[in-house]
């Protein structure tokens, strides 16, 4: 293929776009309080928020997998009415402002929400609890898993599954032994993106679950509050979250994006 010269009218805005995305991140890296970083990141308040973040995002991922895999399969394989509608429903949390997601969760699962009385009757109260933070994280994270997996499932020839069926395998066994292994790259990528989204969740959490150290104050919430009177501390935590996000993207290279290839 002939290598085309890049016209300046495209190159300049493209370079501008790169700078636009890069400068704020460089700001975090260069302004982070490197000399006191170790001390700040091992501060008990930070480790507590980190522990909580891992617990919340871990549970959110688990819920996303348990509910999201069947939903992705349903969308890709089953004949159900209103499929475009369901797909839009799955996409909605991805495009909604997270605070709106929080308001929606309050009106749905809050004390005075649609299911509030029912939840109270079985002794569950989600707002202001760690479970509430998990719900908020799962709500915004699950779509990433569903969309990623559905795309992969739709690309797998049903012949393999039909072959397994003719050999007498049941639907669950086929899903577990044939379909999911074939969709593994997309499953891993979707799970990683969902987990990263859950780890970074802020708006829905603070709106629905509130902010209490040790119970609902995850790392992003702590970053926000630290910014009020300890910008250096907030920058240190931001660096930590930035490093996590960069690690995930690096690990996904070649799985999620075909370019660069051979990541495994």
């Amino acid at each position, binding site marked *: 293929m002939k290598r085309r010269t890049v016209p300046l009218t495209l190159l300049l805005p493209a370079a501008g776009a790169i700078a636009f995305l890069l400068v704020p991140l460089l700001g975090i890296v260069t302004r982070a309080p490197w000399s006191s970083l170790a001390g700040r990141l091992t501060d008990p308040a930070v480790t507590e928020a980190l522990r909580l973040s891992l617990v919340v995002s871990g549970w959110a991922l688990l819920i996303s997998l348990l509910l999201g895999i069947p939903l992705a399969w349903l969308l890709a394989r089953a004949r159900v009415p209103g499929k475009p509608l369901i797909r839009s429903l799955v996409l909605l949390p991805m495009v909604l402002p997270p605070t709106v997601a929080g308001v929606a969760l*309050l009106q749905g699962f*809050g*004390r*005075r929400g649609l299911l509030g009385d029912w939840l109270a009757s079985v002794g569950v109260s989600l*707002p*202001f609890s760690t479970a509430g933070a998990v719900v908020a994280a799962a709500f915004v994270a699950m779509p990433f898993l569903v969309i990623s997996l559905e795309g992969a499932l739709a690309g797998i020839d049903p012949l393999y599954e039909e072959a397994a069926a003719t050999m007498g395998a049941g639907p669950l066994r086929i899903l577990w032994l044939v379909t999911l292994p074939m969709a593994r790259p997309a499953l891993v990528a979707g799970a990683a993106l969902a987990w990263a989204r859950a780890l970074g969740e802020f708006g829905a959490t*603070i*709106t629905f*679950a*509130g*902010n*209490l*150290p040790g*119970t*609902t*104050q995850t790392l992003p*919430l702590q970053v*926000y*509050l*630290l910014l*009020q*009177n300890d910008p250096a501390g907030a920058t240190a935590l931001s660096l930590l979250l930035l490093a996590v996000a960069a690690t995930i993207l690096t690990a996904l290279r070649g799985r999620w994006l075909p370019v660069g290839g051979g990541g495994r």
Partner: protein
Amino acid sequence: MKTRLLGCAAALSATVLLAGCATDGDGDRATTELTVLAAASLTDVFTEAGALFEDEHDGVTVRFSFAGSQELAAQINQGAPADALVTADTATMEAVRAETGDHGAPAVIARNALVIVTPPGNPAGVTDLAGLGRDGLRLVLAAPEVPAGRYGEEILDRAGVTVTPVSQEPNVRAVLSKVRLAEADAGLVYATDAASAGDAVDTFPIPAGQNVVAEYPAAVLNSTAHPDEAAAFVAWLGSAPAQELLTDAGFAAP
């Protein structure tokens, strides 16, 4: 394509220029536009007050820029052009002391205090500070990182009440919404927040002896290009019509 784009850009900038001219050269008389930096908690009442001031003062329009007091101080220190400043505490006004004083010392125009709010009907039966320490009460406070949270802590400490809040919200308005939604049984907010919620919350005042009072000082900035009009605005804030609006909004007189 290129020329059409350029044409658009030209038309766009012409519109901006025209819009800019219109505010300055409106009618026969020249209009003075005052820029007032004001604390976020004044947003509703100052928008109303500004319209009233304009009605009473021909040839002067007031434009507000609302933000947290600390942000306003930072803007002034970075040289934001403005004529007057109203903050939600005296400490912030002190921090920009060098930028005020040429046209009169800062004057307190209103006070604000904390109150207890509960959902309508007060289902948990909380009426005073002691009640906030009750076991199992879903109490929501502002985070200690923000002024309302610090005031709340101070008040509870002084009253000797130990509380276990279920959440420390990032700002005082979030506390109000949690109470309005009845997710919380009780919360501590400014009297003005409670007033803004009307019947959506029940309000219980905290006695002056136990309360912390926030003062709102106003001052003309040294950098103003309209010292007379700016001073007139600051003085007007202390007048009866302005004070009536402030009282309706839940503020206490200075």
